[in-house]
């Protein structure tokens, strides 16, 4: 069964892509091991089957990014709010991988692991409706000063629009597409995925109206290395 639309998680290793997806899909947080290659998930969203690709952030698998991104309707660029480098990597290493995405692809920028910051308690108070499943018990003093602020993510979002030569008026607003989450506590994880899926549906409809765009792309795609060299040389 061919999925109807594709959502791809990109970002440096260890930022929590796999954890976010498991929090959403399996409703729990558990120890993960660094992803190899990519992992494919199917999510039923209304009448649609949305495919989600969780990719490996490791440099070793970097070359595969564009393959996983091909025809994507949405790309979730993930960083760790306590690691500025992980945000920088998004621009330096990962943005170019999205060149193969669908032209009307939407972008989300997600800062994960907010539970580790000293702002977290404050966030919880101000946003009653986004209470995590489990209240956090850790004391504030063990928390760290957040390294990356939402403003930085917004700035990156605007850079992406420039890179893609998109007009701010034609795409969702930066404030709407920059998220801060915690896979550990579940904070805003559902909100993130559901917002994205809702936005993907119109793209799916457009893609379906234009015919099976992705499948055509996939079968026509000629990889330089697409030889029998994978087998006996």
């Amino acid at each position, binding site marked *: 069964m061919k999925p109807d639309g594709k959502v791809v998680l990109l970002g440096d290793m260890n930022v929590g892509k796999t954890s976010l997806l498991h929090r959403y899909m399996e409703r729990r947080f558990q120890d993960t091991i660094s992803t190899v290659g990519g992992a494919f*998930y199917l999510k039923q969203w209304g009448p649609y089957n949305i495919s989600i690709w969780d990719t*490996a952030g490791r440099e*070793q698998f970097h070359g595969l990014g564009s*393959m996983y991104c091909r025809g994507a309707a949405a790309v979730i660029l993930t960083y760790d709010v306590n690691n500025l480098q992980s945000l920088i990597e998004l621009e330096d290493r990962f943005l170019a991988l999205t060149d193969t995405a669908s032209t009307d692809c939407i972008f989300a920028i997600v800062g994960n692991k907010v539970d580790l910051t000293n702002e977290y308690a404050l966030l919880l108070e101000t946003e009653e409706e986004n209470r995590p499943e489990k209240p956090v018990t850790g004391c504030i003093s063990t928390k760290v000063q957040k390294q990356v602020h939402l403003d930085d993510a917004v700035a990156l979002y605007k850079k992406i629009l420039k890179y893609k030569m998109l007009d701010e008026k034609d795409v969702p607003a930066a404030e709407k597409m920059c998220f801060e989450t915690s896979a550990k506590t579940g904070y805003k994880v559902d909100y993130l995925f559901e917002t994205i899926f809702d936005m993907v549906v119109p793209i799916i409809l457009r893609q379906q109206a234009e015919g099976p765009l992705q499948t055509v792309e996939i079968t026509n795609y000629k990889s330089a290395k697409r030889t029998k060299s994978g*087998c006996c040389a």
Partner: protein
Amino acid sequence: MATGEPGSPMREGTVLPKEQAGLCPTDTGGDEPSAGPEEQEELLAPQSNGPVRVADGQGDAQEEPSDKELSDSASTDNTLEDSSEFGRPLGVGVCEPGGPPTTHRDEDVTAASWRARRKHVFVLSEAGKPIYSRYGNEEALSSTMGVMMALVSFIQSGDNAIRSIYSDDQKLVFVQQGPLVLVSVSRTLQSEQQLRQELLYVYYQILSMLTQVSITRIFERKKNYDLRRLLAGSEKILDRLLNLVESDPGFLLGAVRCLPLPASLRDTLGTLLQKAITPNLVFSILVARSQLVTAVQERAVIEECRLEPTDLHLLLNLIGASSAFQAGEIWTPICLPRFNPDGYFYAYISYLDAECTVCLVLLSTDKESFYAVSDCKRRVEEAMRTQGSLQVLSGGLQSPSYGVGQVGVPDLRHFLYKPLDIPENYRQLPQFTSPELEGPYCSEEEQHRLFDLYHYLHSRIHSTSRPLRLIYHVAEKETLLAWVTSKFELYTCFSPLVTKAGAINVLTKLLRWIKKEEDRLFIRYPPKYSTTPNPGKGTKGGRPDGAENGFFAGL
């Protein structure tokens, strides 16, 4: 044996008791390691007072009162030698003072506990840059690794290669592969050869992620490249491999363990995999809890090469070291270094049950074939559900293998059995079987001790200078017997009170039991896909009549 003697191992087994009086409780050194069956017979039926070479080479004849209690056999030269050899290092080997920290990476490399580790493994580049350390942070060890590299290159400068250094209670073994240097610092009793083999496993696991060409190319371009950039995140895979190597006899024996299953069910599953194919799919492997259920290979591939146990071990380790979630389907490039160190396969990995015990691995040569391959999995899964075999597989895994109790002989504690009578023209995955570890071998410490013993016996059997065919070894807490013939390689572990006669008796029963169970314990007729019959192999693509064939029959 292609000669068609179904009961070959058995036949020898039954010969034994009659000769037990003459079975000298010492190493029976074979002068000709490639002894044919006839010689085999001879070796297995030594004359009561005939000359039998002993392991340490002392004396030509070894006279041993045939009725002597084996528990007392420390009086033989052989066991004396063994006991002393085992006494000291074993004590060192099992101690891990203070208990290891939760994550090995954070370990303090200046602490005594770090030094006391059973076995360290380091990987460095030719330029002396640290790449991996089993315990402790490689960064903190960069000066240590620098010294190692200095050693390697100093000796290299004299046109020699450093192979090993022996100290009081440690062995240092060096392996250089291309631009990588691997070092093992071990307090175990493993032979240099075995440690070298382990380092090669580490090297191959690195290749399985990066391939040989790319490593070579990287270092050609930049001699002091920091390979950790590419291996970051893979430390757990190597950590896990090193733990497995010490606990899974498959690595030692170079063989794969199969999940015990009724042959009919295994056949059905093989047929299923044979049907669920798509272009460029070359291997389909069904695994349950790291044990092979069945593997199917494209016919064109099998003609040239075969799936090596090493490659399967590395693949399964990589899978085991990745997060297991049923919902996700993994698609990743992977190299099977023994098959081809320079090429990538695309591996599709998916768990078929919620507990993630049953795993389907499909290897394709086409990077773009994810959806087609995923569809193969869907077909396999559906068919397995309809047949009820999925439930059988995941349900049957409550006890993943079998207990030694099934053999029905009380003195037998554990064994490793690897059939060797695989006909030349039927290329077949080497396999082995062994029961679960139980009884006295439940703790990690005791498991290490037992595997140390197995390693020791294995090194004696496979010694390059003096290979042995039969070793009787009385250890501190158990008695072991290792025996290699042209038809099998067998390591058995008995309770310490077993008598020699008792041990022989047990062997006979064990071989009889294995013979009876071989259909269940091993894949005897590995299937392959492609509809064209296989010319010249006489099997006509079908399953040959099992009864008339040897232990392993045609593909």
